[in-house]
């Protein structure tokens, strides 16, 4: 965790140093105590954008609001003098792919164990763990059993999951739901509250249509509308699903076809954080009050959009692999209630 914070600060600084003289990233943010909540949020958003531009020597271009992927921490606390980002709220683990055994990572069990050690080693334990799917590689009972056994090593015991498309390839699509379906009455989507934050877990890997993207479907969208009805717009919302809830790369199916109908329901909220996995790399987009973020995998990296024939396992040098695997941790500040994302690699 300390490493993640350090990385975030480092890249904030590098953003300053590398700034384009014409960009709006020129000035460090003003002191937070002098700012209203709105301005503070705006300042943080700007800072986040600037960090993205400066990260690790890669030039990022905001094309249509979408940032190209990076392998390094993009987000973190960049407040005055690097003050603490707040209380650890949850850690996002994604794409553990238990059962994968190819060259790109012959030891995904070891990588998950390393991930768990990283989380357990955090100075302050997160209240929750969120797994954004592809728990297993081939939806096999033994893979699910092993994944559950490994994940039970987490000191934080409250685990919330959504399935990935790799978790639903068994003939009857029951292996995932037999183990994790209780929270959603076997529907796959559910919501809960923690520390004043409203969490919405969604499933977008069923109802695939040939040639299409991920799908939420009318039933789930109607459920979200009912779930949000009457909820105060000041409630911070965290939405998580396996496949990206915005279109990152359509030719590879990296998006959700009916996500717009979800976003139109979320737009009135002052703070919305949308978390996904699936693409095994960090991509972030900021749009109004909404932060979209995909997490690294703990199993193997995937190519940047459009590089190569398809989104398969990317083989990299052994020493590079742990740098491309990792987790996202999210902290919350009480006043004002601001969520902060930090990405931490395994090495």
């Amino acid at each position, binding site marked *: 965790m300390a490493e993640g914070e350090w990385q975030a600060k480092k890249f904030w600084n590098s953003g300053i140093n590398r700034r384009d003289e014409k960009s709006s990233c020129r000035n460090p943010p003003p002191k937070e105590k002098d700012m209203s909540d709105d301005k503070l949020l705006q300042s943080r958003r700007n800072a986040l954008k600037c960090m993205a531009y400066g990260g690790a020597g890669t030039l990022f271009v905001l094309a249509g609001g979408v940032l190209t992927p990076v392998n390094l921490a993009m987000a973190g606390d960049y407040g005055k003098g690097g003050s603490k980002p707040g209380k650890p709220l949850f850690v996002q683990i994604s794409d553990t792919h238990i059962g994968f055994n190819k060259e790109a990572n012959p030891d995904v069990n070891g990588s998950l164990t390393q991930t768990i050690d990283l989380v357990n080693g955090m100075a302050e334990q997160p209240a929750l763990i969120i797994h954004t799917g592809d728990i297993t*590689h081939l*939806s096999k009972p033994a893979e699910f059993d092993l994944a559950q056994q490994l994940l039970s090593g987490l000191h934080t015991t409250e685990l919330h999951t959504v399935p990935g498309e790799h978790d639903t*390839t068994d003939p009857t699509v029951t292996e995932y739901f037999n183990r994790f379906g209780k929270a959603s009455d076997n529907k796959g989507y559910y919501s809960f509250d923690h520390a004043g934050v409203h969490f919405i877990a969604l499933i977008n890997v069923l109802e695939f249509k040939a*040639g299409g993207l991920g799908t939420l479907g009318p039933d789930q969208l109607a459920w979200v509308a009912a779930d949000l009805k009457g909820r105060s717009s000041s409630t911070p919302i965290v939405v998580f699903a396996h496949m990206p809830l915005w279109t990152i790369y359509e030719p590879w199916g990296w998006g959700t076809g009916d996500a717009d109908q979800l976003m139109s329901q979320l737009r009135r909220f002052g703070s919305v954080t949308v978390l996904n996995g699936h693409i095994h790399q960090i991509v972030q987009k900021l749009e109004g009050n909404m932060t979209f973020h995909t997490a690294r995998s703990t199993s193997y990296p995937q190519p940047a959009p459009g590089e190569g024939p398809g989104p*398969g396992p990317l083989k990299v040098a052994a020493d590079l692999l742990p740098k491309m695997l990792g987790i996202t941790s999210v902290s919350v500040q009480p006043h004002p209630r601001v969520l902060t994302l930090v990405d931490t690699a395994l090495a």
Partner: protein
Amino acid sequence: MIFKHFQTPLMLLGLAALGFGAAWPLTTAWAAQETQAFIKDFKFAPLTIKAGTTVTWVNKDDEPHTVVGDAGLFRSSGLDTDERFSYTFDKPGVYPIHCSIHPRMVATVVVE
């Protein structure tokens, strides 16, 4: 799952031909037709076959794929590298297929 398609007497003959082919060679007129189709680089090989042919798809990618008939006639489990799935097309027609893990992977099987 895989064997549920081998229910017709003709297919049982086909299995017998596979099992005893070496000891009891059958003429091609007796043996059911079979063909193999690779799944590679996130693509299904295009197929044009005769009615009665059994197609065996073999996944040659490092990434799992499935073979799903759009009309719901068949659906494989997740196929890991070199794993295979077979289906026999008895009737002529055009059969669209896709991969349920990568729904952008689509193809058609033309049965004449």
